[in-house]
């Protein structure tokens, strides 16, 4: 196995990357190798799919499968070896189908090589023997670290784009352009590209594509569940039976709320599902009681202490502890061997488990937090915001967004939020916010100082806010008194970073560490060409941001 796709990847004397029998995330060697093989086959589908798209005859089912397949390989999503054996067989069938369509339309065309021609073994032992050429490190002795790093940037960015596209897809928002863009990137990767400018351009093209995908996702969420509104969310438990829903998927949460309708079971959100409370069509359910817990890396303690079943709808899952292994369920792309998986949207088992489990014995003294500042809510008070900036009441905006994680260095983000001066506004999104969103940050110029934009899935909303403010101030985004403090952990964040770079947003402070797959030369490109800044200390970075604004 070799994997260095996430921020917590192993760092040893021999370099970065998880290369032992088990990754830091808990993914074992067989699962990692099978994920590499699945991606190899998806590249093969992409080779044909990009040609079918060009001919105007795309295979929509193949496009859906690519999104789902890539999503299963994100960090902390699917650890179930058996599931990957099935997905590989399904990928081979789909690849054969798109090959047949391509060959029927192009009789006499020379056969495509590489992943397009790969035949996977039919059993686990055979598959594991085939894995090594499918590794991200394959060919490193010929092409060098920089090319491998850039291919990884494209692949990991692509995974993030696919994950967001899948979230939009399950709510019925898709477009052929997305399928075509993803197939194009897979086709490029299938050719084992070595041309650095070509790879960099593809990374930026994915950034642009991701902006469109996130627009679709925003339309999917707001179109289905209404426009997010500022909402006070209870973060303390209520006496009674309880279900906890984690991950990002609003549709799964909606299905669970439907399943408990008419019962007295309280449904709590966890982690990245906190923003669900701001959607009118979700908060209308009386069973949606509040939010429990914080970000993903604390789940082992939080889930163990939760007195009901837990449903993990998307990333980030970590190894379920024996204390709650019998009462955690996975849905969608998520999986763990020996953990019950709900594939058909039927949550009756979860309801049954909730009724059998004790629930919360008593109601805790109530505490609430304010969320729901998506683009419509923020731009609804745009006049007030603009006046506050013009009058000098608000000096600067900090967008502190992205993933949380376990590493001690992530205290930086807590420090940053605490030490940012009182005349600044903090925008936040993603699960990184749990490092500071339970504190009262007060108000400035009649506005809450902390504005929670939503999930990492709502990055579109944040970018939209920035673009609208730039428009109002008649300047570029980089001229706004706005600094982006982005914490990354997994591949969705890689896709958002590519979007920021593609849109020309400079001076993104990226941390807590830089991606291990970026070589010093590639980091040099990001720093020089795109103004990406590694983080230092909260104090120094706040001062530097304010100085830049003043200059």
């Amino acid at each position: 196995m070799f994997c260095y796709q996430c921020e917590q990847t192993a760092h040893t004397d021999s370099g970065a990357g998880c290369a032992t029998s088990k990754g830091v995330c808990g993914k074992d060697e067989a699962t990692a190798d099978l994920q590499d093989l699945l991606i190899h086959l998806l590249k093969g589908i992409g080779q044909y799919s990009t040609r079918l798209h060009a001919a105007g005859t795309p295979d929509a089912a193949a496009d859906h499968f690519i999104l789902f397949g890539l999503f299963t390989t994100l960090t902390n999503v699917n650890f179930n070896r058996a599931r990957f054996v099935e997905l590989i067989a399904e990928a081979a069938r789909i690849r054969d189908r798109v090959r047949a369509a391509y060959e029927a339309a192009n009789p006499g065309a020379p056969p495509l090589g590489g992943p397009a021609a790969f035949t996977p073994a039919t059993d686990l032992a055979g598959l594991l023997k085939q894995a090594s050429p499918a590794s991200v490190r394959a060919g490193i002795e010929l092409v060098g670290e920089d090319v491998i790093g850039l291919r990884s940037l494209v692949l990991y960015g692509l995974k993030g784009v696919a994950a967001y596209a899948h979230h939009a897809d399950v709510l019925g928002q898709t477009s052929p352009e997305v399928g075509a863009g993803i197939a194009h990137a897979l086709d490029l990767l299938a050719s084992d590209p070595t041309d650095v400018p070509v790879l960099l351009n593809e990374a930026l093209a994915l950034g642009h594509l991701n902006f469109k995908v996130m627009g679709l996702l925003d339309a999917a969420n707001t179109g289905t569940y209404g426009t997010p509104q500022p909402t006070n969310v209870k973060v303390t438990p209520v006496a009674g039976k309880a279900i906890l829903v984690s991950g990002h998927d609003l549709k799964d949460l909606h299905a669970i709320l439907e399943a408990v309708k008419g019962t007295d079971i309280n449904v709590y959100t966890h982690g990245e599902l906190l923003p669900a409370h701001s959607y009118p069509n979700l908060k209308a359910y009386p069973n949606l009681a509040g939010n429990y817990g914080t970000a993903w890396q604390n789940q082992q303690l939080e889930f163990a202490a939760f007195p009901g079943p837990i449903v993990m709808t998307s990333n980030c899952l970590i190894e379920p502890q024996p204390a709650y292994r019998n009462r955690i369920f996975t849905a969608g792309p998520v999986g763990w061997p020996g953990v019950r998986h709900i594939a058909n949207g039927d949550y009756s088992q979860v309801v049954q488990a909730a009724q059998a489990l004790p629930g919360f014995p008593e109601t805790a003294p109530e505490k609430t937090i304010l969320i729901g500042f998506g683009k419509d809510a923020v731009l609804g008070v745009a006049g007030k915001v603009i006046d506050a900036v013009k009058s000098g009441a608000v000096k600067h905006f900090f967008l502190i967004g992205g993933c949380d994680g376990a590493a001690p260095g992530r205290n930086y983000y807590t420090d940053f939020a605490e030490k940012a001066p009182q005349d600044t506004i903090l925008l936040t999104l993603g699960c990184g916010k749990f490092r500071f969103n339970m504190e009262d940050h007060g108000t400035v110029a009649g506005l809450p100082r902390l504005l929670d934009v939503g999930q990492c899935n709502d990055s579109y909303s944040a970018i939209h806010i920035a673009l609208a403010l730039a428009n109002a101030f008649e300047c570029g985004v980089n001229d706004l008194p706005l600094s982006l403090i982005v914490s990354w952990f997994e591949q969705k964040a890689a896709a958002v970073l590519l979007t920021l770079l593609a849109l020309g947003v400079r001076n993104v402070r990226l941390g807590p560490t830089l991606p291990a797959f970026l070589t010093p030369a590639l980091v040099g490109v990001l720093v020089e060409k795109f103004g990406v800044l590694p983080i230092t200390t909260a104090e120094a970075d706040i001062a530097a941001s304010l100085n830049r604004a003043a200059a």
Partner: protein
Amino acid sequence: MSEREVTLVTRDGAELRFPCAAKDNVLAASEAAGYFLPAMCHEGTCGLCHARVTEGKYTMGPHNSAALQGGEVLLCRCEPDENLTVALPYNQAQVLRYKVPVRQAVIESMEPAWQNAVALTLRLQPDPEQGQAVEFSPGQYMELTIPGTDIRRAYSLANLPNWEGRLDFLIRLAPHGQFSTFLREQAKVGDAITVRGPSGSFILDESSVRPRCFVGGGCGLAPILSMLRHLGEFQDSQPTHLIFGANRESELVPQSDVEAVTAALPQIGVTLAVSAPEENWQGFQGTAPAALDAFLSQTDEPIDIYACGPPKMLEAIEILLQQRNRDDRLIAERL
């Protein structure tokens, strides 16, 4: 001094003490003592188990120094060289403590199983604090207390974790056993019994990619049935074989149980081994270990062997594996 004492001090001042063997790390020792600290990778990389040693010498195993803040250690890589005091950066509420639950149940049914065994089903009594869920890992056991005494006996669960409060056991009636005597002479449907559990480490390693062979003798089939039902429920696709040994055909597991397992796990191969069969016996003639020996002859691939049965059966398997000297792994529980 081969064993050190570790004292963990939480941020709110609670002290947790436990022993730590030489070359063992603090995190593993704490888990062995029933204290589960925040931790994730267990490999010195993720940084979640960071803490500060305030007293005592230690050695740090291979780890990612970038995951450390100044002067701290990662408990998963910290091996005490002497008694150690460690300050934890969180409160005692953050430490999970595993306590074995004690519950009240009633006898729902008692049916004769095959020769000399009873299929006992208990139902947990409703409890607002603990609920009605039966949570365990297939292969684990519960301790049942004979009513009116302090006598406890451990029996493996044969069914799956469930939310109906149902506990199934397969209990061999030993001629002079105390629980057997209770079952034979005293127990009746509706009686209350105290159950303590789940406990035990005879559980599946679901991360292993090896083929699995289950070997059961007598009521050693109970935990194996639970494991096989679990694999069936999760549509496990790993190559799997079941060997069940008995002295006579009449002591074999009922055909209906075998059929239920093969229906849920289509890939499973089954060997019924009888050491003293009737004349027309078509199956394997010999003991369960002899059947395992024959099975191993057919494969070069190392396998995981899950065995539960009488001590004699397990000793024979251990000797057999020593003689064969392969890379197989034995996960066993003695009856």
